[in-house]
């Protein structure tokens, strides 16, 4: 979609020659053709990206010089569109109404003699700020159109890749924290992580503690439970540690040992099978 076609509107050819009439009243400029099915009309109206987009459309449609906007006429049309959108039960963002108020204000200021200014400069055109914002928005739509025309990965082309040969050591890829966080967000958005893991609000510190407990059991020999609690961490720390130990037991990653009733409890890592991955140096 290029910005050019956008501003003539998706159905312009069908309504340019229509009888101008809204609610039975003939109008100087009718925004829309009555032959457009109501649903299609609503969809078409909803496509406006905001008040600037709608205004720009009106200006381009009538070949108005953006520097010489006939504010009264454009305001009238703008308000007609707003009425139409309301009648189609399109929820209007507050910005549309703000723009209506602004246009009305500019319209009335145009009727007043220019405010006298201290210096010799030309009086400010009441439309100046509106024009600047419209131009800025038009540039934005053009920039967006330009971007959209670029051949884009995963739309116009797809990366192809073979796996590296098995004998080749992996090249040292750089660490990319943004990418890592982005990957996790993607997984969460797809919802697969939650379903697969019943992720409650399990704080990362529990996960971290699970890893460090497994580390402490590296040797495979039992160690007293008390070794794993760090009093200096306070009650929160003890709670985190307890949850971590329970979680590890639940998933059968570690087991308990107690030689006699009420005797000291030890933890041990379940029998270590053949380790496929190399240990961290």
């Amino acid at each position: 979609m290029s910005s050019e076609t956008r501003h003539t509107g998706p159905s312009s050819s069908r309504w340019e020659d229509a009888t101008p009439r809204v609610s039975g009243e003939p109008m100087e400029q009718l925004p829309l053709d009555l032959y457009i099915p109501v649903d299609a009309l609503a969809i078409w109206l909803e496509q406006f990206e905001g008040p600037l987009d709608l205004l720009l459309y009106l200006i381009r449609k009538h070949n108005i010089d953006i520097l010489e906007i006939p504010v009264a006429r454009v305001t009238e049309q703008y308000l007609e569109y707003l009425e139409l959108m309301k009648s189609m039960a399109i929820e209007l963002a507050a910005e549309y109404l703000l723009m209506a108020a602004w246009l009305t204000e500019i319209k009335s200021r145009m009727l007043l003699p220019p405010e006298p200014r201290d210096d010799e400069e030309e009086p400010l055109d009441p439309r100046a700020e509106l024009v600047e914002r419209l131009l800025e928005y038009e540039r934005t739509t053009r920039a967006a159109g330009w971007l959209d025309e670029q051949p884009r990965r995963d739309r116009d082309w797809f990366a192809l890749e073979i796996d590296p040969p098995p004998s080749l050591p992996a090249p040292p890829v750089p660490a990319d924290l943004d990418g890592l966080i982005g990957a996790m967000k993607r997984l969460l958005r797809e919802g697969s992580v939650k379903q697969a893991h019943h992720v409650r609000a399990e704080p990362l510190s529990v996960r971290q503690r699970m890893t460090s407990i497994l580390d402490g059991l590296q040797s495979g020999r039992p160690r007293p439970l008390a070794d794993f609690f760090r009093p200096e961490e306070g009650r929160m720390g003890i709670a985190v540690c307890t949850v971590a130990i329970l979680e590890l037991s639940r998933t059968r990653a570690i087991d308990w040992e107690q030689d006699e009733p009420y005797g000291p409890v030890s933890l041990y890592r379940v029998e270590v099978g053949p380790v496929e991955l190399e240990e961290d140096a």
Partner: protein
Amino acid sequence: MSHRRHSPPEPPEGLVELVEALLLAHPDPVSLEALGGMVGQETAPALIEAALDRLADRYEAHRFIQLNRLTREGVPHWRLVASASLAPYLKAGDPGRPPRLTRAALETLALVAWRQPITRGEIEAARGVAVNPQILKQLTERGWVRSLGHRDTPGRPEMLGTTRTFLQDFGIDSLDELPDFERLAGQDDIDV
């Protein structure tokens, strides 16, 4: 690869090319079922298998690329990989651009970082695809992922976790510095 060829159906050339492109576009090994889902229901699985046979024959003759058939959880998967003979050339060259972690590798690493200790099966469940052994190898060789032992459940799956090197390389002091799930998943989280 040709063990099923009683009366092999003739795959149209377009299907062979489609399967080839799909295998190359997927960073992970792809199962017959997954291929079927992509190619479309109206194509019989036998025809896709025939296309894979055809590809296997073609790449058999290729000096540097081969079609690997590997089994994941009892299900055959396919993947196009470089032959060992390509290794010396890849070593020789400096492509000028630093290599990057693939999306699959990043997702795998993210799961290990946030969900450790995690098993390979859990990674596969979360990502919905088989874990590419090359990726785990890459992450381990890079010194970011390590084994934390085995879980005493059927199959004795290995548990994976991150290393101190991982923290150093990613410039974080502890795993607590990673944003937590709730924040990452928050609907109105626009903190980028």
